[in-house]
């Protein structure tokens, strides 16, 4: 094997090494911005989402406007959704302050994403329940879905 061949092999190998590193970086670069997809398709996940089911024309449901406490020691307390994400907890910075010993300081949050509303547990001790299921991930809720934190039940209302 001649000296030149070995030299070329060495340079070619270093080139491959760097081509790999640079391709990895370019994948990261294109990944950094993710992909913006229509909100409705987003929850379907995947690159080719099923076409979302069309609602019957003219039957658009109106959006909820506030969160209402329907059960527990603070019945009747409410927070407007228009003001942004609603923090629920015992802390003073919570939009809905609950005097409930089973609620954490920063317990859960209700936030909007497009037309959908999500409730997200913020690492509370006793958990947040949608219906009877303890949620582990941000979960969509609709008007009337009962969200239970501690001994309190909240609902989205119009």
């Amino acid at each position, binding site marked *: *094997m001649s000296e030149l061949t070995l030299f070329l092999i060495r340079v070619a190998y270093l080139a491959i*090494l*760097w081509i790999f590193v640079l391709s990895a970086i370019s994948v990261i670069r294109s990944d950094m911005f993710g992909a913006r997809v229509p909100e409705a398709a987003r929850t379907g996940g995947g690159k080719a989402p099923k076409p979302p089911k069309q*609602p019957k024309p003219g039957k658009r449901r109106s959006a909820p406007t506030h969160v209402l406490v329907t059960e527990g020691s603070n019945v009747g307390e409410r927070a407007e959704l228009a003001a942004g*994400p609603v923090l629920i907890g015992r802390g003073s910075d919570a939009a809905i302050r609950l005097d409930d010993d089973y609620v954490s300081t920063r317990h859960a949050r209700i936030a909007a*994403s497009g037309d959908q509303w999500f409730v997200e547990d913020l690492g509370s001790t006793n958990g947040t329940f949608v219906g009877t299921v303890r949620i582990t991930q941000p979960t969509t809720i609709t008007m009337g879905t009962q969200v239970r934190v501690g001994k309190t039940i909240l609902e989205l209302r119009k």
Partner: protein
Amino acid sequence: MAAPSSTIMGFVHRRRRGAELFLLVLALIVGIGAYAAVGVGVQGEVPPDILGYGGWLVGLIIGAHVVIRLVAPYADPVLLPVVAALNGLGLAVIHRIDLAKEAAGDADGFAQQQLIWMTLGVGLFLVTLLAIRDHRLLQRFTYTSGLAAIVLLLLPMLPGIGRTINGARIWIHLGPFSFQPGELAKLLLVIAFAGYLVLHRDALALAGRRVLFVDLPRGRDLGPILAMWLVSLGILVFQHDLGSSLLFFGLFLIMLYVATERPGWLVVGGLMFVGGATLAYVLFGHVRIRFDIWQHPFDFYTAEQGGKSFQPVEAKFGMGWGGLIGRGFGDGDPNRVPYANSDFILSSIGEELGLTAVMAVLMMYGLIVERALRTALICRDAFGKLVATGLGTAIALQVFVVVGGVTGLIPLTGLTTPFLSYGGSSLVANWVIIALLLRISDQARRPLPSISDDTTAISSDDTQVVRLGASS
């Protein structure tokens, strides 16, 4: 740790499995190409078993890729290819050193063993991905894993199975296998720290007295984790495993800082490190020797001078001889450095492939750490954030300690170079770390699930209208 969910919503990560496959093909070319180049350079021919060897690597890596497609479709696309490339390159360099040793008369077959360990590592990687479908399950095992880590660290002290190799009692032997339990303990301690800090970070950050610019937390909040940490650190110092002690110290400090958002911890930790290092210098002879070698490597080089710095000095000669683009596989003498295939593998790469390749390798480690921290940023739960930060930090610190030691930036402390070095326990543990990172990133990048499709699905133009009105 501000929850990023408001920015995540309305933004979705793509799966990028195609990009991962593309990078994997390149990574396999890097790994198998290195093996072929070693054959051509050392023996003058492409190795006859290249098809079998290459096929084995392809099978392992593509198998891992397929499983990721099935069980973690949103996982990070860069981690697996980078790890595959590093592992492939490491195998080729270990093979190269084996060949040199064979020529010198003592055959070892380390590359063969490393390939077996890699197979085991990929196997455990797949088991981890399949068994742990949600990383938050691990939070239940906070104290269990802390205890398990301490037990693992204590194992080498047992008279029956513990072994002292090169002055460090960090090995256990079970039949024909030897294992370094500290590598696995690293992973378990990250889970234990993360689980504990998630529950107690508010108390740690807010309750307590202020002493000299630093808010000291209450003893009952800090106590358990401090005990866990001191015990593991004490064990390591007792076992003369300097590198691991440094790694665990930094790991704990950075996780505490990330969890509490108090920069004061870094100051306190820095002071503690200086104090501890000074104490170790005064108390332990072997620490003093390491320090002196670092300061004056050439004073201990020759046999008359004790030959204590023979290894690092030879490594520096090798890297200097390699220069910018290296000697080429087969034209260097990497086997002059003792343990060239484990702690000093980077100097072998520096000698035969040059600074260009060393920088590429460091870039790859940088990418792994970047992806880990990125995962921590986009992760939606605090436990996942802390675990990802901890794992990324562990890899970063390990690379810093070993590369800094080999290049003479810091005193030499023995640690393996992740994925490159010969060493079964390290390789297997690191593959499991990558599996955990992939699992967390899959959870973090996955779009939010919807529990009530039929009632909430609306056409996209409706969405636009409401979005203007309702979202912040």
